[in-house]
């Protein structure tokens, strides 16, 4: 089975993980149009290539960030969410 490295639990079978979608910034709570909210809710970049996503190790309920290639099915890097958001770089 494909193996993913969890930043907390180390290498585990990929069946223990669930993908929670692209890292994205929600629109500003006040001021954003209905269209902007609908786009945020439904649309997806659905990139064919390298993506940055939220993943969760289900047995320990640990959420983290994974970077992977959706064309080659390679997992490039997994790391704690703090690494991304500490820099304020949450795009």
């Amino acid at each position, binding site marked *: 089975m494909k193996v993913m490295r969890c930043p907390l639990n180390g290498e585990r079978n990929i069946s223990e993980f669930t993908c929670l979608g692209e890292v994205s910034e929600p629109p500003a709570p006040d001021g954003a149009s209905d269209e902007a909210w*609908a786009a945020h809710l439904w649309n997806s970049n659905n990139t064919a290539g390298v993506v940055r996503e939220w993943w969760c190790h289900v047995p320990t309920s640990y959420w983290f960030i994974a970077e992977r290639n959706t*064309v080659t*099915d390679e997992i490039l890097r997994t790391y704690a969410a703090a690494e991304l958001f500490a820099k304020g770089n949450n795009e």
Partner: protein
Amino acid sequence: MPFGLLKYGFRKRYPAGPDLSWPSDLKSHYDVIIIGGGGHGLAIAYHLAKHWGIRDVCVVEKGYIGGGNTARNTMVIRSNYITPQSVRFYKAAVDLFGTLSGELGINLMYSQRGQLTLAHSDATIRTFRLRAETGKFCGTRIEMVDRAQIREIVPSLHMPEDARYPILGGLWHEDGGTARHDALAWGYAARAQRLGVEVHQRTEVTGIQIEKGRATGVETTRGAIGAGQVVQAVSGLSSVVAKMAGIVLPIRTYPLQAMVTQPLKPFLDPLVSSAGLHVYVSQTARGELVIGGGSDPYELYAARPTLEIKEGLAMHLLELFPFLSNVRILRQWAGITDITPDYSPIMGKSPVENYWLDAGWGTYGFKATPASGKYMAQAIATGTVPEIIAPFGLDRFATMDLINEMGATAASH
């Protein structure tokens, strides 16, 4: 008569002619350019030429016709959905399949032998009742069946009462069936070509030309082509191609795996499906069992196989038919499916003028091919989206008018 076949082959009385012809050069402009030479794109081209007199049509295909998801689905045709909008639309497709072999002049081997969907929980029974009543209301053949009736429909089904997921009842859909999927693409292509449509294989679209919010043509690996209207019908790459036109779609792309066993004597007439066990099966005319189930667990554009999915399919199939335990798998494959949030397709206009979407066909594209071809062609020819496909527009997401078919789609196809 050992040389009979050879003699027959050389006889002049039956000259062999090519079914399909391939034009060599692209023109600089067409009335309509269709991106994608699968069943959907070719069906749209056929209907434009046949019923709307629009023959200056070019279908561009990056590989070969019918080489994508048209030949990767598991051939299921049915209309037992849960919303009236879906039932009406897919019923139109089922009705068209009935006479399509004659219309296209190619044997689609359309076999309407019914689909049995199994319920293993009270919650499923409740949704089956709704699907049965919705289906009857919309004029399809569908009914709830109990265990005794299920035994009659599929005598070989293993139905112990003390199973982990016992079979409580079923949804019997007499209109369900299968057809040869590749023949569908070839049939539409051959008929469309005879009416003047050009089909260009190995011509990949690399960009969409847009001027002042209007699509004016496409760029391809063989040069730019101008167009009055542009249609995208590219299952598995809907998001990638739409992005060329600057459109972001509510689509996430997942692989869907399936497999086929060695041929067996005919024992299974109807199609059998269990959403609870994530497996469905049908026996082909050759005797092979076609087995499919749910999508892969995470988004991907790679049609690579995984052992886990195959193990899951086999395990669940054996709960229904334990005597298949020593049967071997002959082939396995995956298709790339564009899943929308409500498991319904996106058909109709896009934010770009003169750019039409036939996208988000997830795991339900093959069965819809004749209807999507007919009504998309009507929309493109008249500029007005027909009532039957109007609910499937891209704008339904912003207004929250979703057509939720997740329960009637996932793992049933």
